[in-house]
């Protein structure tokens, strides 16, 4: 391995030992260290493929949507050839933001500082008084908006990377990342809805990410949702779990159908007794032969939460969530909401009811999350408390990865922390690699056998 840029001289902790996969113990300073945070922006967000938007959000030429890659503001815009470009939202002249709106339609991006005007493809069209003031010295071809190194589209989901050495998106996603996105397409193509719930938490982004694998907190953090009868405990927090781990830190954790439960569904469906009634929105799909075909023999039995590393959480409620870093102590939560294109109206309304009442800052479940994650972050700031590592040991050594003849594999277990451990193991490898080349050579392949 080449000389790491991060050395223990600069950081308050040693990356090599900050996470111990043998014990599942994690140094909590990774949540608060400023230098770690700056390296995360470079090595993880600056290097990975980041979700930007869905095709349906910007269907026509000139439609734009602004987002972030780490702390870099970006604009996704469809140009007149139909291509989606992703540009840094920063004028190369003085750095000013060239697009101030969150969404909309435009013919060009006109900088409000000095009037440099950029075409939808990012090229510099004109600078005011160019002839008189620059006297022919301004090479406009060299001073366009900087664009993402690569922009690729997987089935309508647009991702961008700032690193030209990144592998193609589908290689990056691997079968697990693709499965996570395919799970959103079990009812056919989708359209994203107008309106993204955005709010800001005082937590480190990684706490918000590791929580998506966490089925241990559900009954405690979200107990009121069961107690008032909004959702049933059996539906929201089943003990039967399935974890699927993929390269580069992607994973799927949460509820899974055991073979027995699957047989029960199949039987119920075959007998014509009607739809499965338990957690219908997601589990019932798993009796559909087309869904089985699309998701594969292991994938179709999961109805948990995929995470596209680093920060894209996909739910089974027709939503997905970005956890955008805003410094080590703040995270912005963005909930994207979508519907299958052909969904009957009644089902669409039911889905939108769920979108507006489960997650989001006023959601019956999610309103109780924020303070926990923020205080976990706060708990890593005390001189003494930060010395005490965190426990991610649940289920460690007790479970087995089963590989199907198709090549898909999964861990069937009760509630566990396999997904969180995989996230931090992968995080460590991303942080230790100095380049994509090094990451490709040195990252762990997903575990096999006993885990």
């Amino acid at each position, binding site marked *: 391995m080449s000389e790491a840029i991060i050395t223990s001289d600069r950081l308050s902790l040693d990356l090599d030992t900050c996470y111990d996969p043998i014990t599942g113990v994690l140094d909590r300073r990774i949540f608060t260290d400023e230098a770690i945070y700056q390296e995360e922006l470079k090595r993880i967000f600056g290097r990975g493929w980041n979700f930007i938007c869905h095709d349906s959000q910007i269907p026509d030429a000139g439609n734009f949507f602004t987002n972030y890659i780490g702390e870099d503001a970006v604009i996704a815009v469809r140009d007149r050839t139909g291509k989606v470009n992703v540009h840094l939202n920063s004028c190369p002249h003085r750095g000013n933001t060239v697009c*101030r*709106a*969150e*969404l*909309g*339609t*435009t013919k060009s991006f006109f900088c409000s500082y000095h009037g440099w005007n950029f075409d939808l493809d990012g090229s510099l069209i004109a600078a005011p008084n160019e002839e008189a003031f620059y006297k022919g010295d301004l090479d406009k071809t060299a001073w366009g908006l900087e664009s993402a190194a690569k922009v690729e589209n997987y089935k309508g989901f647009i991702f961008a990377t700032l690193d030209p050495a990144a592998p193609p998106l589908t290689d990056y996603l691997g079968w697990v990342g693709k499965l996570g996105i395919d799970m959103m397409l079990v009812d056919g193509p989708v359209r994203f*809805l*107008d*309106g*993204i*719930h*955005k*709010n*800001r*938490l*005082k937590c480190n982004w990684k706490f918000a990410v590791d929580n998506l694998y966490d089925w241990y907190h559900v009954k*405690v*953090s*979200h*107990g*009121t*949702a069961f*107690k*008032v*009868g*909004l959702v049933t405990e059996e539906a929201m927090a089943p003990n039967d779990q399935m974890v699927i781990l993929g390269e580069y830190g992607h994973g799927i954790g949460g509820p899974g159908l055991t073979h027995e439960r699957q047989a029960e569904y199949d039987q119920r469906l075959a007998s014509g007794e009607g739809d499965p009634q338990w957690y219908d929105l997601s589990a019932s799909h798993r009796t559909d032969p087309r869904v089985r075909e699309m998701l594969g023999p292991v994938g179709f039995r999961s109805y948990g939460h995929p995470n596209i590393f680093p920060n894209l959480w996909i739910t089974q409620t027709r939503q997905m969530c970005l956890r955008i870093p805003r410094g080590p102590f703040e995270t*912005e939560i963005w909930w994207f*909401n979508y519907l299958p294109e052909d969904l009957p109206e009644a089902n669409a309304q039911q889905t*939108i*009811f769920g*979108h*507006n*009442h489960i997650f*989001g*800052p*006023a959601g*019956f479940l*999610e*309103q*109780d999350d*924020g*303070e*926990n994650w*923020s205080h976990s972050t706060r708990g890593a700031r005390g001189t003494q408390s930060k010395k005490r590592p965190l426990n991610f040991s649940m289920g460690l050594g007790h479970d087995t990865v089963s590989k199907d003849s198709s090549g898909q594999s999964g861990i069937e277990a009760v509630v566990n922390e396999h997904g969180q451990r995989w996230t931090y193991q992968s995080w460590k490898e991303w942080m230790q690699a100095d380049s994509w080349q090094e990451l490709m050579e040195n990252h762990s392949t997903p575990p096999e056998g006993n885990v």
Partner: protein
Amino acid sequence: MGGYQDLSIQERMTLSFEAEQFLYQEAALLDDRRFDDWLGLLTEDIHYWMPIRRTTQAKEVHLEFTKPGGMAFFDDDLGTLTLRVKRLSVGRAWAEDPPSRTRYLITNVQVSKVEGDEITVKCNFQLYRTRLNSEEDSWIGRREDVLRRIDGELKLARRHIFLEQTVILSQNLSSIF
């Protein structure tokens, strides 16, 4: 009752006074955490809605708020509002345990329309909340309420809430607006 513009100044003053007193009393109930009593102020068919707001170009301000029936921070009826209140008393409503300290300031109250038994009232509000040691949130916005007179008493039949934030700068929206 005719349109608001047809009323005499005395009739308008009476209506404004009634509407203001309703809103102040409602705010006092919420500050005092008397949420069950607050539910008693709502009509059976209440619609309580807070759209999502976005930064847009000046020429596209029509996109500023999401539309009714779509994505929203709140899109509640009496059933879901009752659940919001109920959850506070069943334990484990962590966003409100320990309870928030709130103070509602209601201002710029304007009766804008009178139609049959219904009065449309616009107001500005500030909801100031503190939690725990030093958590502090302040939401400022405007509301458009419809108050309906039922058996001589005013009830809240519709509330549209327009916050001045796009990204909500608080960890949750666990308060009633």
